[in-house]
């Protein structure tokens, strides 16, 4: 560090130094506040998305469970093709890494699951939707 500045030139340097100190101090305060608020905001978003993703997956799983039960009590009720699709959907849902929101494959997996589900519905000729059910209009336009 320089000795205590006295002259006008030193004064300028001193000012710059103080500015920097001020900036750094502000940065430190901001950073620690940001850590807290960022964490809270992120958590809020995560809570929402986690619930939605969970709901969607649970919905598919529930359908699969019922359909599989049907197959068990009355194996002639669905065609072989549908049975196979139901089996596959069950596997897909089971493979989805629910606790890894950062996994790179989840979007792709979800798309596959949705398609498979729609395929089964179309084959069964039923409509299963609820308010809030992901419509994914994009998907429909692209793939159907």
């Amino acid at each position: 560090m320089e000795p205590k500045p006295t002259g006008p030139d030193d004064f300028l340097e001193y000012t710059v130094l103080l500015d920097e100190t001020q900036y750094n101090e502000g940065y430190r305060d901001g950073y620690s506040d940001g850590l807290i608020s960022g964490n809270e905001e992120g958590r809020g978003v995560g809570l929402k998305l986690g619930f939605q993703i969970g709901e969607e997956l649970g919905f598919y799983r529930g359908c699969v469970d019922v359909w599989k039960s049907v197959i068990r009590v009355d194996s002639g009720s669905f065609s072989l093709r549908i049975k196979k699709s139901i089996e596959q959907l069950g596997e897909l849902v089971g493979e989805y890494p629910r606790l890894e929101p950062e996994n790179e494959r989840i979007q792709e997996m979800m798309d596959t699951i949705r398609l498979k589900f729609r395929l089964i519905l179309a084959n069964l000729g039923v409509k299963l939707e609820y308010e809030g059910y992901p419509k994914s209009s994009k998907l429909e336009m692209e793939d159907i």
Partner: protein
Amino acid sequence: MEHLNLETAPRSSNDDKDLNDDDIDFWGEDETLDTDTNEASSHSSFLNREWKRRHEQFHTMGYRDGITAGKEASAQEGFNVGFKQSVHSGYNWGLVRGISSAYINLSDDLKEKLARTVEKRERLRNLYQSSHKISTMDALKMYHESIQRAETKQEPSESSSQISSGDNGELSMYNQLDDLFKELISIQHDSPEIDLKIEQRREIPE
């Protein structure tokens, strides 16, 4: 959060003359007020204000940059914590929806094969009707409220993951969603024909 920025620097005014208009002072628009004071004091008070203004300016700049960086550093982690906390509750709720909807859409013949008594069929129908009335938005709200209730009871420790791993009992005890889920379990318990993969076990926290 933004409003905090304005308040971070101490605002004590050394300049008693300017107590009433120190907001304006920051913009240096008060020269006219200084006309009847002597040069030196005016000058020094100007410097003083200038100094303070500068001081705050840099502090605020730093604060803004800092808060952005801090948020970026912690948002993902917060997201992950929240996601893991809620995904299981959402999943259970989705099971209620999926099972009751898929059931209600079966042919009468199959409905009877899966639920052999009138009473069971009635319960499944009720489950469907109750759950179908609840939109995803409503469900989210209910879930959110249940979390807040739980958190006011026990101050959230940093390890929110503990909450999620510790069964959803405490967490959403008064939750309608939970009641419907319990009803589902109970129906299933009474109707072995319906083979459900309900995961009673909690996710094992990594």
